[in-house]
Each structure stands twice: as structure tokens, then as C-alpha cells.
């Protein structure tokens, strides 16, 4: 009985030691990983700062103006280009200019479409010509 108790006790001791060590090693590993990730995040943050600075450097108004002057036909806004909403004339009555043109040419009659033709000409059964 006592022997069994001893064996159990020793077994418990060994297994707890193994467990404690595994926990310890895992912690170390996790800590290392954390450190690595932190370093990586820092590198990314530094890279973001550099990219932001570069973005602003490329977007500085001085450079944009030079590029716009060179490549675009845009001109500075003047007050003459701004009009009030009330100054814009209302849209006139709708005019079908194409229809009117056709009428002038004497083509105002409705055009014959295949369906019109279908109704008054004989076709083979099944609808196929």
C-alpha cells in the first residue's frame, strides 16, 4: 500500500515537473513570438511613416501645380465661371428633333416592322418562314 502511494507520488511529481517545464518553454516561445511580432509591427509602422511622408512629398502643392501646368488644360477658377441656379434658363418644351426631321423628309409614317408583316402574310405552321 505504501509502495503504491510512493509510486503515485513519484509519478505525480514527475508529471507535474514535465508539465511545469512544458508550460515554461511554451511561455518562452510565446514571449519570443510576441517580441518578434512587436518588432515586425514597429517595422511596419516605420514603413507607414516613410510612405506617408513620401505620399505628401509627391502630393506637395508645389509639385502638383507644376505637373498640372504641364499636363492639364485646366485653368484657375474665376468668379465668371460660377452662375446662380436661378440664372440657368428652364428647359423648354420637349422637342423631338429627329421625329421632326423625318417628318420634313416625308418619312413621318410608321415604319413597317416584321411583326406588322407577320399579321397579314401567310406563314408556315409553327411560325417559321
Amino acid at each position, binding site marked *: 500500500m505504501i509502495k503504491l502511494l510512493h509510486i503515485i507520488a513519484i509519478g505525480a511529481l514527475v508529471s507535474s515537473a514535465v508539465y511545469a517545464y512544458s508550460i515554461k518553454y511554451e511561455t518562452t516561445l510565446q514571449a519570443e513570438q510576441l517580441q518578434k511580432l512587436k518588432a515586425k509591427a514597429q517595422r511596419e509602422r516605420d514603413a507607414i*511613416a516613410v510612405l506617408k511622408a513620401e505620399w505628401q512629398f509627391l502630393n506637395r502643392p508645389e509639385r502638383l501645380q507644376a505637373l498640372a501646368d504641364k499636363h492639364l488644360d485646366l485653368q484657375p477658377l474665376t468668379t465668371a465661371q460660377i452662375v446662380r441656379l436661378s440664372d440657368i434658363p428652364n428647359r423648354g418644351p420637349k422637342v423631338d428633333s429627329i421625329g421632326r426631321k423625318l417628318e420634313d423628309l416625308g418619312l413621318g409614317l410608321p415604319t413597317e416592322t416584321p411583326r406588322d408583316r407577320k399579321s397579314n402574310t401567310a406563314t408556315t405552321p409553327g411560325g417559321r418562314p
Partner: protein
Amino acid sequence: MTQEVDQQATAPEIDAATIAKPVVAKPRWRFRTEWLRDVFRMSGEKSEPRVGLVILGFSGLFLAIIVRLVMLGAFPSDQIGLRRATSTAISAARPDILDRNGVQLATDIRTVSVFAEPRNILDKDEATELLTAVLPDLNAKELRDKLSTKKGFVWVKREITPRQQAEVHRLGIPGVGFVPENKRVYPNGNVAAHVLGFANVDNVGIAGIEKYIDSQGLQDLNGAGFAMQASDLRPVQLSIDMRVQHLLRDELVKGLEKYRAIAAAGAIMDVNTGEMIALVSLPDFDPGNPVDALEKDRINRMNVGVYEMGSTFKALTIAMALDAGKANINSSYSTAGGMMRFGRQVIKEYHGTGRTLTVPEVFLHSSNMGSIKMALSVGVEGHKTFLRKMMQLDRMTTELPESAAPIVPGRWGEINTATIAFGHGLAVAPIQALAAVGALVNGGYLIKPTFLKRSEEEARKDAIRVIKPETSEAMRYIMRLNGEKGSARKADVAGYFVGGKTGTAEKVINGRYAKNKNFTTFTAIAPSDKPRYLFLAIYDEPKGYAESGGYSTAAWNAGVTTGKVIERAAPILGMAPRFEPPPAPFPLMARLGAWGTR
């Protein structure tokens, strides 16, 4: 030793005494071990020597610990020394600087610097040779001297490129290492140089807002070992609008060239909050490479230069007379004769009319005599008090550390009041004049200009009422009148209801006013019925040009520039153009029937 001799000397006597008695005398050697036995005796009453031994033992132990601590403190080991050296030497993090819309004006980026520990370098000549081969711009002799010292830490080169870092790393010299550092970059170049100032290689602010940030406790933080990362620090948001700042600089650069002036400056201020939307002084410098920043002609002319502002000061004189009740908008002043005599001095009318002028006409024709008469009606003391109230006689301090005290006449007599009334004889920093004109038009509140973003409520808290709202309306009215019919027509951009005042002062060369060397200013407000922005442009010694017919007065240079600036800046600043003038912009002036309203 002496004690033992003593004991031996006295021993015979003791022996004699003890022998005489029938008590058994203990031999001397047993006497010595007696206390040792006491130490190991278990009985309580004789344990004092044991306690003493324990006390002695622990005292010795603690003494050893203290000695070691002192040693550690006084003679730090190499590792600790290196860390300390780098932490004090590497450049600290600085907060980002943003404009009012969040555009980046200054930021920190990570770079790497090379250092050496001369104590750990074995072959100094070889190290010097190898390092200079990789970093060719190093001075070999200087480096050799640096490495020969007994120091624990010296810089080899600050802020190297990643490629150079790899090359130095490949050399594998023991005692040479890298430290990551923060480098300050200004992506916008020259555009806001005078506002931002710059930081040196250790990231310590040297000028401008950068220095202001340091004065707010940043350096103390670094000294205590805090704030090593820019992300720990809250960005500083300025009142500057980068787009407007750029276009103001752009127009001034063009003007500087066209009018062949030696210097130019300009500013835009929000009159209701005191925020500086833009501030330019030319010539300027690149804050990223400020080699010429400290040259004399690169000063911030807005804050540090002091100038006689010329006719711009007439606005102050008129406001003073109106506010003191010595004049009203319909008062009239005779300019007959075209000159006034003060002792030996004669003051002439520049745009002489020879007739009697009302107050708006005095402003429109820029009449020296009218202004003098108004100032004299208030009196010398009243004039001084008013100018002091308008902050024209004392140094004006803003966030920018650079400032200049105005040049005030030592003995202020009637003649001084007379000349200062039309802007000569008192030199002030343009930003001071800007604050004063802002107060004249914004309803009468003097607001100290600021370079940090703030709201109208915050500005109103420390605003001082300096003139009555009615006087402010009169000032807006005459400035608008001048923009419509007077000398400020060049800046009257349609739709923005601009008002303004030109100012041309002759420069003082060797104590005399030079006839052909002008200092021109132009102050404009928009829109005049309820001003939001105040524009100022300055040229130093502009020359006449073909279209101006040779004139180099303010309207022909500063005025033209201001007009262009208003036209370009107004849409960005969110000012909508209006197609007809506001229905009743100046109700009080209309009711009084001021000159020009009928």
C-alpha cells in the same frame, strides 16, 4: 597590538592580587577562549556575545552590498554605459505637425546611425580605413582622432542609408554598431518654412513651431526617458491651410520676380478667430536642409521685421478719432495749402486735393493732413493710449519664438503723433498691424494671432474689446469704399465684396527717407459686410514696371498680388461669390448719410 602590550604590562599586578586570594586563578589562555565559549553556550543569560557576532556578520554583509551598489553606480559597466550614452545621444521623437485639414507638414521617419565604442576597437587604423572606404564623405583624420579617445561612445555618421548600413555591417568591425534614430522630414519643402522652423540632427527644435513644441515640455519628457516614439505623441495641428499657404507663396514668388523687389511677405488671417491661415516670407529656406536659414535676409518678415506701415496706419488713426468721439463719419477736414508745418518739419500731402475732405474721403485720398488733424484732436496721450491698447507699442508674442519689439520714438511729442498718424515714425511687426486691422473690422475685438487651430469661442475668450461695434462698421465701410472707388480697386475681385487699404512708406536709408525706395503694403478684407479673412501683402523695394507706368506704389504691386491671392484663395476658403452686393451692408452708415452712401 597596543592593548596586548598593555595587558601584559598590567598582568603581574592582577596575578599578584588574585594569588593573594584563595580563588583559583584561570590561566591567561583560558581567559581568551572564555568569550568563545560564551558564544556557543546555550544558556540565555550569557548570549550577548553571540548576538554581537550576528550583528557583526550582518553589518559586514550589508556593507558589502552597499559597496557593490556604489561601485555599480559610480563605475557603470560597459553595457549599461553604452545604453545610457545612446539614450542621451540619439535624436528624440517629435510629434507630427499637421495643417488645419490634416495634411502632413512635418513627420519623423526611422533612420540608422553608426556609432563606435573606441575602447572595444582593437585596430583603430584598420577600422578607420574600412569605415572611410564605405562612407566616403567621412574625414579620415577626424575619425581616427575620434576613435583614439578613451570614450565609451562616439558617433561615426548620423542618418545613413539602408545600403550603407548593410555595407558597414558586412565589414564586421568589433565595437562598431547601429542605433535606430528619428529623422525629421518636411515633405512640403519651402512652402511653410517660416511657420514650421526646423529641428537639428538631434531632433531639437531650433526655430518656428518646432521650437515652440520643445518649449511645451517635450525636451523635459525626453530627458526623463519618455516619448521615444512619435506615435506616443499627439500631433500638433496648426491653423495653416497648406493649399492657401502654397498659393500665397506662389503669387508672392511671381510678384517678387515681376516687381524686382528684394523681399516679400504675405499673410492671411481669420479675423474672427485670430488663426493665421497662411504666412509667407520671402526669401525663405528648406527646413529639411536649413543651411541658409539663419542668414540675415531669411528672417520671418512678418514677425521679426519691423517696418513703418505707411498709410495702413491711417485706418488706426481714423478708428481712434471716431471711437473717441472726436470725429464722426461726416466730420470734415480742410487740406488747403497742401502742407503742415511742425517747427522745422514740413509734412506734405501726397495726393493733394486742396479741398475740404470728409472722413471717408480722407481715407480714400490717403490724406496725410486729414489724418494728422484727427490724431491731434485726440491728443498725444490719447494717441499713445490707443496704440498701446491696439498692441502696437509692445512686442507681440505668438507661438513662434521669433518676435521683435516695435521701434517707438523715445520722446513722443506732437510731431511724432503727427507722423505716426499717417504711418511714419513708428515701426511695427506686420503681424502686429494685422492683429490691429483685424480688430478694426471684426466688430472691435482685438484677438492675438495664433498659429494653432482653434474655434471662434476659444478666441473670443481672451479677446479684448478695443473699439465700439459702430466704429468697426465705419471702418468696414470706408475700407469697402476704398476697394470700390479708391486705391484698393486692384484687389476688388468681383463677388467677394473686398475692401482694402494701400500703404506706401518711403524707406529710411542712412537716417533719411529715400524717395525711390518704397516699402509697400496692402491690407484687404473680404467680405466687407461681415469680414472673415484679412489679407496682407508686403513688398520691400519693388520697382515700377511697364504696365504700371513706372509706378512702384502699393496698389501696383502689393495690391495686384492681393487681388490674385483673393481670387485663388476664396473658393478654397469656402467663400461663395455673391452676384449682387448685399442689400444693406452698412445700415448705420446709410442712416448717418455718410459720404458715398448717396
